[in-house]
């Protein structure tokens, strides 16, 4: 018991000094479990997040847009890979994580359960969804767990074009015909609230937040990050000349922040619990991709053992 206490003290003192915990270092079980849950969820989000955008790759309006979207979706696959690898350093296997995703046990960001109905949605996703993700991810570069922090540095660097490509899509639409601008406005109407929900429940309703902040896994609360996102995004919407679907949105001179209307948390929880417009479709797509890829994995394994056999025969 005393030994555990001194281990805990050493652990916490590393955290308090703003130093990093590495894979082989002692860590409390709850810290490990929290990280496994958070990083694997993050990885799943990158992977499932490819689906709504992938929907438009074949229908992008020009070669330039297609190349950019393809490059972005390709990046997201890489982000999933970095994060799965970082989670594996905590002692969970890749196949366990995939099982958790495919069985519905693990969650992923619930924004990806909304459909991409028009080309403007691709712009809105880059601008808002990647924008909100970046807001979440930048502080994670300083997360106390080294492998996660380093993965996030790579991710953030690559993210830098995602948001701009989305915004540029909307800017082009907003400078086009009235119909195109209407398309942009419609996309903003549908993606605004789900984007605000990406920061998670309000501080009063997120019980694990305080511990995560004490462990320096998180650096800012959900509400702080959400407010920052709103403050940055509204002027960007103004440049586009479209407006967020919130009649209560108003700049507050006193706080120097935008006040905004209440978030529909019933909708949020309903989507988290599987009842969003595309939950079923997303999960089915992932399971199908995994199952249909089985022969490729098997073939690669068979080839590797064949080569190994040849080497050992020629060595004998």
């Amino acid at each position, binding site marked *: 018991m005393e030994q555990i206490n001194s281990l805990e003290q050493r652990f916490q003192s*590393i955290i308090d000094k703003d*130093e*990093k*915990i*590495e894979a*082989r*270092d002692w860590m409390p079980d709850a810290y490990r479990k929290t990280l496994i849950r958070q990083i694997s969820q993050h990885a799943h989000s990158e992977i499932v997040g490819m689906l709504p955008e992938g929907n438009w790759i074949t229908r992008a309006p020009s070669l*330039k847009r297609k*190349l*950019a979207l393809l*490059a972005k979706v390709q*990046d997201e696959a890489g982000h999933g890979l970095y994060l799965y690898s970082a989670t594996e350093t905590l002692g969970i296997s890749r196949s366990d994580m995939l099982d958790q995703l495919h069985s519905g046990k693990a969650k992923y960001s619930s924004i990806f359960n909304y459909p991409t109905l028009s080309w403007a949605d691709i712009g809105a996703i880059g601008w808002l969804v990647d*924008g909100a993700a970046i807001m979440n991810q930048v502080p994670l570069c300083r997360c106390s767990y*080294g492998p996660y*922090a*380093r993965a996030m540095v790579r991710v953030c660097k690559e993210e*830098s*074009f995602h*948001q*701009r*490509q989305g*915004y*540029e899509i909307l*800017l082009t639409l907003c400078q086009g015909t009235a119909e195109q601008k209407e398309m942009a406005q419609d996309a903003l109407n549908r993606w605004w609230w789900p984007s605000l929900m990406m920061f998670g429940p309000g501080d009063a309703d997120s019980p694990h937040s305080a511990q995560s902040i004490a462990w320096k896994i998180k650096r800012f609360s959900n509400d702080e990050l959400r407010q920052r996102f709103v403050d*940055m995004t509204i*002027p*960007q919407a103004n*440049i586009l000349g479209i407006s967020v679907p919130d009649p209560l949105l108003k700049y507050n001179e006193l706080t120097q922040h935008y006040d905004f209307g209440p978030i529909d948390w019933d909708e949020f929880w309903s989507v988290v619990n599987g009842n969003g417009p595309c939950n079923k479709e997303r999960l089915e797509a992932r399971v199908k991709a995994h199952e249909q890829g089985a022969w490729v994995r098997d073939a690669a394994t068979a080839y590797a053992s064949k080569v190994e056999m040849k080497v050992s025969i020629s060595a004998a």
Partner: protein
Amino acid sequence: MKDWPLFEIFIRSKNGLNHKHVGSLHASDAPMAIQNARDVYTRRNEGVSIWVVEATYITASNPDEKEALFDPAHDKIYRHPTFYKLPDELKHM
């Protein structure tokens, strides 16, 4: 005498940073490689963690294939943020 295998040595200079390749040395086995790496590469407190990997286990890309591997990235300028032209008054992006 059978030659001792070559080990590649990676040092983490402080928690939070990646292990970085610093050089190589011969040793009879991995524990000895760690001992020797400690003596050779961390005499002035250069590290908090050492990885040793037997060099034969490293597969390196072929320098002759440099173009085939890396050239395709050259013309993908749309992977960089500067490719997207946005108004100057736009902030925080």
